[in-house]
């Protein structure tokens, strides 16, 4: 029995050593002459209720990878993990990616609640993961040492949005409806005190993301309520909310965030949408990327940050190879920490502070005109 244990322990030791070898750092035999091969993962809601956002993220990751491989002469491949914006699914996808020794870093996941679920798993695997849309403030307070994001956080967005509402829309009363997800309740938490401090009456409501009928809730919108704030991730739900408002002849304006930036699904005229990403079709330097991305169909603000995140990882892997080392999770993580891009697809620089926040992140505000088109509000 004892002998069998020793054999088992030896086998386990060999396996661990092999695992470490594949993910640990090292120097390539031929310096930079060896082909720079690696895999990166993407965690996105490729299917499920917000698949439209996940598909956009996947397409922009694929686009970034193909351009970077050509530019850097690398052979980086993409491994997909479908999260359906569900922390449980994200955990499963993360376990699959972290157990794949070829995967050195991950783009995503999309939601803050997913990051909360997978952060410890990535930390244990010493594996960098860069989200293009997880904006909860607590994610970058040191809990997850391998987490980064290329966009700003909810604190900045909540403050900007609430101040814009107070100073420009001048409501006497607002209704604010969270969708019971970490992202949504977090934003409500930042916006409510600012609105209340300005003397605005705030009616806080909460609905499940799966709800599709808002007629009962809309009946509560009083004539004094001129703004309804929807920090939601499902644009089709906000469209239905807007439809219920029109059905009951209510005049309140919808003010949405991030997930509502979907010109195909949310097009209530007069509504506002604040987003962590810009409309890259309005950035002249991005013209060639916009043309390249059009083969995937229409897109919003969720794809470009993922392009930026993928590019950061691609550049980190390329820099490791250029230094004559074999890319590993640890040296790619170190290279990502040192990222310093003077410009990006987002029209702003990217570098990370010690907790993984983009030091240059900002938010963008759009208004939907009578034709259903999103117009950027300057400032």
């Amino acid at each position, binding site marked *: 029995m004892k002998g069998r244990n020793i054999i088992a322990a030896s086998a386990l030791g060999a396996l661990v050593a092999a695992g470490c070898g594949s993910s640990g750092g090292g120097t390539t035999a031929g310096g930079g002459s060896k082909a720079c091969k690696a895999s990166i993962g993407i965690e996105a*809601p*490729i*299917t*499920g*209720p917000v*698949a*439209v956002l*996940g*598909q956009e993220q996947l397409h922009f990751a694929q686009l970034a990878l193909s351009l970077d491989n050509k530019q850097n002469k690398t052979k980086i491949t993409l491994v997909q993990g479908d999260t359906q914006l569900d922390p449980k699914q994200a955990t499963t996808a993360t376990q699959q990616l972290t157990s794949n020794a070829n995967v050195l870093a991950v783009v995503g996941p999309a939601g803050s609640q997913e990051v909360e679920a997978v952060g410890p798993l990535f930390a244990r695997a010493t594996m960098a993961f860069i989200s293009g849309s997880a904006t909860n403030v607590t994610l970058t307070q040191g809990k997850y040492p391998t987490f980064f994001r290329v966009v700003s956080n909810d604190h900045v967005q909540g403050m900007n949005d609430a101040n814009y509402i107070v100073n420009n829309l001048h409501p006497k009363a607002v209704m604010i*409806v969270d969708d019971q997800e970490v992202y949504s309740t977090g934003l409500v938490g930042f916006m409510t005190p600012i609105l209340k401090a300005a003397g605005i009456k705030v009616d*806080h*409501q*909460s*609905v*499940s993301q*799966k709800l*599709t*009928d808002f*007629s*009962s*809730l809309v*009946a*509560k919108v009083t004539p004094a309520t001129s703004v309804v704030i929807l920090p939601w991730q*499902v644009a*089709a*739900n906000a*469209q*239905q909310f807007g*439809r219920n408002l*029109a*059905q*009951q*002849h209510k005049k309140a304006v919808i003010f949405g965030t991030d997930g509502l930036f979907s010109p195909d*699904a949310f097009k209530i005229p007069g509504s506002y949408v604040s987003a962590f990403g810009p409309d890259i079709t309005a950035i002249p330097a991005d013209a060639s990327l916009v043309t390249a991305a059009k083969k995937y169909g229409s897109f919003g603000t969720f794809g470009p940050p993922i392009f930026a995140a993928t590019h950061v990882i691609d550049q980190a892997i390329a820099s490791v190879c250029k230094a004559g080392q074999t890319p590993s999770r640890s040296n790619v993580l170190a290279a990502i920490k040192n990222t310093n891009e003077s410009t990006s697809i987002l029209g702003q620089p990217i570098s990370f502070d010690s907790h993984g926040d983009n030091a240059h992140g900002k938010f963008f505000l759009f208004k939907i005109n009578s034709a259903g088109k999103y117009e950027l509000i300057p400032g």
Partner: protein
Amino acid sequence: MGFFFQELVNGIVVGALYSLIALGFSMVYGVLKLLNFAHGDLYMVGAFAGYFVIQWFGGSKALTIPVPLLLVIMFVLAAALTGGLGVAIERFAYRPLRNAPRIAPLITAIGISFFLENAALLLFGGQFRIYNTSDFIPFSSGFQIGSVSVDAVQIMVVVLGIALMIALQQLVVRTKLGKQMRAVAADREAAEMLGINVNFTIAATFFLGSALAGVAGVMAGLLFNQVTNTIGFLAGLKAFTAAVVGGIGSLPGAMLGGLLIGMAESFITGYVSSTFTNLLVFGLLIAVMLVRPSGLLGQVQLQKV
């Protein structure tokens, strides 16, 4: 007062929808004693059928046929498709297990539910499909009394829902097929000995119940605008609850249960808070079940020992 009546209208509309789905659930349970968890997914298939009918006839903004004709085609096609699908499910998934322990068809029902949900994902993708009902049935086509607004779609849902419920009730009470259904529900073996074609009766029950789910799916698409492969789960859960509260197996009970849940949701959202809607609705339902374990209109089953 206007607010009260607005919430009443909202509750009745949603309740009519729940009732219609619950009817099919209750019918199948009455005849087979099977909790058909795939029922909500047939509702989803019906909603997709309605969406594709709109697309076939030019899309919501450029319809090539009159709106009443479009609605008739949507409802008839969805009912036929889901009815046929229901019969196929019964034939190939449930009938082979008719004499198996009850847990086997129950697990199969859950499996069918996942199968339909994922088949829809594969066929139609994960994104929302939008009906854009107001493009072809404008809100102005309804009426407004004081602050209470009722649009044409809401009126249609309630009227059609009530008509279907009455028709179904009459079918069960007055027709030969209805008598056969009641006989099979009471005692399947005795019904067979009396010469009733049990397989046909069960298939007909599945057709009718599934067709009602398909009609409810189109109604939901017209009311709520959005269709995706996952909408059946919550609808099925609400319908199941409605059927149980009303007294599972009882058709008037299913109608009452659906209306009760719809109105409870509406009034709790309106007068308490949307945050606690599900908590309070299900709390209320638990209270009902504690007082009347067989449901509001259900009958206590006596068992000879």
